[in-house]
């Protein structure tokens, strides 16, 4: 409310004031000499407005005090909002006061002067000559330049070398590494192993390798169960999905977000087919096709992890992913995960 009122006041004071015709002293340039009162043209006289400006300044002071009061009180509802409003009012009143002062009380002269010199040709030529003449006593200029340049370059390289410690710049194999090995059990967030019979159709599960960090991109899986008759996996993956249970890397191959969306039709004849979707750029992968991209910007299929059901009915990996997990980099497809 107060802010609104203040805004209105400012607009009124500004709007009502009519700008005065400016008078200029003939022949008065930017560098005119003379005594003090000749340098600045007389401004409009508005003693009434000066009172208004003073009032605005005092309102600013009052608002600032209000902020201090709000701060020092115990917590109460909307304290955060009051902090903002009081502080805003303090700055706003002061600002409005200054603007009114500038427009209604102080002189608003319009002066003119020459733009600075466009070019300093003489100085430029002289500077160049000084540089040139300073080197006249050198006879092997090219040798010195080459040697000096080499020194500069080498020192630059040496100075940059410690930057190599920043990270494993040249050891890119961590990108290809995942914790998945043949025989490793799939567990949930709390570390409980997944049993094949627990994996139901029409839903999805997040799984991790037993005993490994949940944070590394190579760990996380999304597991779904489809009708085995409907799977259209690549031929070499025929036995990767026991009972139709499929495991994919949960990291989008586009930009590394978690593929946290699973859509499944309630009634397949009239609804879209199952899909794994990344919420960042909506790349959509078809689990029945082994993670093929069916929509969105992803360029590679979602890597599939071969599964097996052990004697105890628990899910285990049968090896590593079909291809490198996560966002792609130069040469990625040649680098199988390890």
């Amino acid at each position: 409310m107060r802010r609104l009122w203040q805004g209105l006041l400012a607009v009124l004071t500004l709007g009502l004031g009519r700008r005065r015709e400016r008078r200029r002293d003939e022949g008065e340039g930017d560098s005119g000499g003379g005594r003090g009162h000749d340098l600045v043209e007389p401004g409009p006289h508005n003693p009434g407005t000066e009172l208004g400006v003073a009032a605005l300044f005092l309102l600013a002071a009052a608002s600032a005090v209000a902020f201090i009061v709000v701060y020092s009180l115990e917590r109460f509802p909307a304290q955060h909002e009051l902090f903002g409003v009081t502080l805003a009012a303090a700055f706003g009143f002061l600002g409005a006061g200054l603007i009114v002062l500038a427009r209604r009380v102080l002189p608003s002269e319009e002066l003119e002067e020459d733009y600075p010199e466009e070019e300093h040709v003489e100085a430029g030529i002289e500077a160049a000559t000084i540089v040139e003449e300073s080197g006249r006593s050198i006879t092997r200029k090219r040798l010195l330049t080459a040697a000096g340049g080499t020194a500069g370059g080498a020192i630059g390289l040496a100075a940059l070398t410690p930057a190599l410690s920043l990270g494993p710049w040249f050891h890119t194999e961590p990108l290809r590494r995942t914790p998945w090995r043949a025989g490793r059990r799939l567990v949930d967030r709390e570390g409980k192993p997944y049993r094949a019979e627990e994996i139901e159709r029409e839903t999805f599960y997040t799984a991790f390798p037993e005993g490994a960090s949940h944070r590394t991109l190579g760990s996380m899986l999304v597991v779904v169960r489809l009708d085995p008759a409907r799977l259209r996996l690549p031929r070499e993956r025929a036995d990767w999905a026991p009972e139709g249970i499929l495991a994919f890397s949960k990291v989008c191959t586009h930009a590394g977000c978690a593929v946290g969306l699973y859509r499944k039709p309630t009634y397949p004849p009239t609804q879209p087919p199952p899909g794994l979707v990344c919420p960042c750029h909506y790349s959509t992968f078809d689990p029945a096709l082994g993670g093929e991209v069916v929509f969105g910007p992803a360029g590679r299929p979602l890597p599939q992890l071969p599964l097996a059901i052990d004697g105890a009915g628990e899910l285990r990996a049968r090896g590593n992913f079909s291809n490198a997990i996560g966002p792609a980099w130069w040469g990625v497809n040649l680098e199988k995960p390890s």
Partner: protein
Amino acid sequence: MRARHLLLAVVLGALAIAGAAHAQPRSGVARPPNEEQLPLRELGSQLYAGNCSACHGVDGRGQRTPRKTTEGIEGQGPPLRGVGARSVDFYLRTGYMPLSKPDEQPVRRRALFTDREIRAMVDYVASLPPPGPPIPRPEPGKGNLAEGYELFTEHCAGCHQVAAQGGVVTGARVPPLEDSSAVQIAQAARVGPYLMPKFSEKDITDAELNSIIKYAEMAAKRPHNDGGWGIGNIGPVPEGMVTWFIAGVAFVLMCVVIGSRLRS
């Protein structure tokens, strides 16, 4: 035989209501004329016959191949036997059903049926063998918010957005949860309407579901907007709009007031 009588009644009812339906506007529902006098099961049966059977088939047996109906739509839909009161109550109270076209996404709207009509249809479909699950009775008060947050983020936020404000999945629009009751959230989790996954008690226990509902209701209905106006609780898009349409305009106006010249 009781079943035979029932079948006869349904067919007759369907014929009667089909006639009535012709008189009604296309989007409306077909109601038996003597609705108040009918016992609940009988009312449910007649309403089912008039409003659902075109797609879900006679007796909830489903309609696998599209069939032209009297209303001009291609009737096609899943069987309803065994889905139980849980599912029917959800679809009717959210206004998801009836659909005007079988392949469109059901969206939340005002339920087309009265409370008694819904109870009647729920009762009727639930009575079809085999028996299905009842309407769930979640107790979100017993839940834990932090656990709810973790479970919601893992299972739900991908589509429903972390503050339950709704979202998009390719092929469907995901509803926000601000209008969903605790019972409906529980039903949706167990039923998995349209493209939503279906979480069984083995996957998410009833206790965990309580936590999820407690979190979702807080996030969607009573968000902690300690910072002021919540602008939708979906983050940067409305923030950018405020930046440009409120702050940007205010700053330009300020410049216009302070700088005297408006035109070159």
